[in-house]
């Protein structure tokens, strides 16, 4: 209080300029505004302008009339969506696949980071880490090409089955095994990458803590539990919030490049349904926009709920 009064008193008006303090501040930073302008323009044009199109969820889209001219129909699109069996199927798949990912995929990078942290930082460890990170930089188009190869009739998987005298299988056309491929291949592609985030947090730990613990007679497992784990846990809390905020997404890039009509029942998610109904089946733009809108709203609500939960119940820092 007294501080702000002092600074206010010290701030004498410049007699040469009669501009307001705000305008002064802005002109002082004019070069920074020039620098940030392209970024702001980018977000306005490519993310905020499309947000206006959400009104289509409440309209019957007529291509010739555009977004503005199309007639309002209230909640007609919503009742269409909820009565659509494909929507209900995709909604269920999205939730199931996302929860499967949280259960199966989420712990993988944590485990990997803890293991990588336990071994000495030699050349071999660096090579190993480079290998684990590499698939992150390959597109799902390519990865799915490789997977289709592995699971094709002459592929690695069936060759191994033959080797053990088992009968060959068509993995990618069978719903449950397709879902297993989704989880495993995503771990293969992303676990090494996500582990870097945990390792970065672990690297921030003061090494003296470990030395002090060792002097006190703590073994390696106890050191990991008492020193490494709390740091890993707060990183995991942030990543968990972000993952919960993505539950309605389910992994479009992966599924879209890998799925086929034989497994729609198990793997069609909201994003793939939206894509097909917009560009392939022509179910209508209104349907797609409505599903997209529902998705965004649910994602936002889940994110806020997860953040609140982590902060109040789990007593972590959150976002």
């Amino acid at each position: 209080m007294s501080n702000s009064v002092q600074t206010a008193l010290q701030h004498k008006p410049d007699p040469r300029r009669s501009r307001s303090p705000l305008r002064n501040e802005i002109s002082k930073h004019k070069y920074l505004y020039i620098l940030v302008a392209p970024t702001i323009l980018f977000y306005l044009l490519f993310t905020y302008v499309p947000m206006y199109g959400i009104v289509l969820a409440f309209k019957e889209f007529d291509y010739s009339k555009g977004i503005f001219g199309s007639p309002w129909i209230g909640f007609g699109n919503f009742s269409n969506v909820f009565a659509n069996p494909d929507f209900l199927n995709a909604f269920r798949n999205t939730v199931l696949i996302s929860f499967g990912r949280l259960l199966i995929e989420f712990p993988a990078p944590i485990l990997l980071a803890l293991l990588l942290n336990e071994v000495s930082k030699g050349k071999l460890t660096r090579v190993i880490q480079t290998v684990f990170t590499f698939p992150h930089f390959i597109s799902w188009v390519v990865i799915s090409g490789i997977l289709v190869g592995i699971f094709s009739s002459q592929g690695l998987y069936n060759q191994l089955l033959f080797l053990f005298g088992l009968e060959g299988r068509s993995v990618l056309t069978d719903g449950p095994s397709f879902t297993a491929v989704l989880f495993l291949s995503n771990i293969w592609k992303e676990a090494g990458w996500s582990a870097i985030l945990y390792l970065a947090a672990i690297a921030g730990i003061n090494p003296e803590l470990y030395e002090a613990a060792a002097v006190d007679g703590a073994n390696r497992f106890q050191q990991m539990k008492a020193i490494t784990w709390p740091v890993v846990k707060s990183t995991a809390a942030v990543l968990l919030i972000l993952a919960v905020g993505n539950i309605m997404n389910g992994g479009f890039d992966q599924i879209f490049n890998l799925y086929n009509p034989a497994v729609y029942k198990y793997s069609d998610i909201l994003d793939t349904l939206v894509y097909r109904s917009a560009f392939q089946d022509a179910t209508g733009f209104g349907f797609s926009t409505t599903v997209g809108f529902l998705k965004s709203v649910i994602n936002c609500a889940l994110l806020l709920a997860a953040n609140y939960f982590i902060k109040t119940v789990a007593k972590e820092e959150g976002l």
Partner: protein
Amino acid sequence: MRRGPNLANVFITILLALLSLVALFPFYQTLMMSFSTLNDVGANRIFLYPANFDLAAYKFLFAEGKVTRGLLVSGIVTVAGTAVSLMVTSAGAYALSKKSLPGRGLMFGGILFTLFFNGGLIPYFLTLQKLHLQNSLLVMILPLAVNTFYLILMKNFFQTISPALEESAKIDGANDITILARIVIPVSMPIMATMFLFYAVDRWNEWWLPTIFINDTKLYPLQLVLRNALTNLSASVGNASAEALVRGTQNAYEGSVRGALIMIAVAPILAVYPFVQKYFAQGIMIGSIKG
């Protein structure tokens, strides 16, 4: 020292080494498949190495115009797109790293909001269509100019730079743009190298926007050429009975060509990645400190 070479250490190292071999093997086998003859792929005669070394698949692909053209399009988009993204993102991140900038909170909040709420596919499609980005290479450059996560990483990195460096230049009368170009960027090489890798890889891998907005086959990037080749394949997977797939010669002939196509798409990343890799652990570590 807390970690000597002991039994647990050796065991974990061996475990991780084996796992990394498993992780690498699909790429290795795809490479070997691309070097094999069509007959050997069909007869299951490649596992660890090609029975007969053959470059026919690569010759076939490069003789066909689609792949060469795809490489050219992807090359142009990657170079131009990375340049645009690096310029826009570093300028924006630098400005947003200044806590004294009036309106910073509003701008940054507005940017974060877009991570969790968006207009959805159709409004996005209509907007880009209105901007005349259909069938233009710009559709793979402009709508991707800024990646929010990369912007945050860069902003956080800039915030760790000592203000004293900039103060002295400011006293000498340099403006913010000069300071960014002459002082801040040169001391930010770890994050710049990281961002260069991320953006270049993203542009090279981009397949979604061209899938929707590029109808002209002459403008197909390599990923789309690859995707179309693979989609034909997976459509046949979807329709054929499991039995015919397992026994049949269904896609035998495609094996080596598919392998070669995949390798052509992976090669540029493989070439750049090891050189930039040493920077990005450092770049992410400093950038991910909350700020």
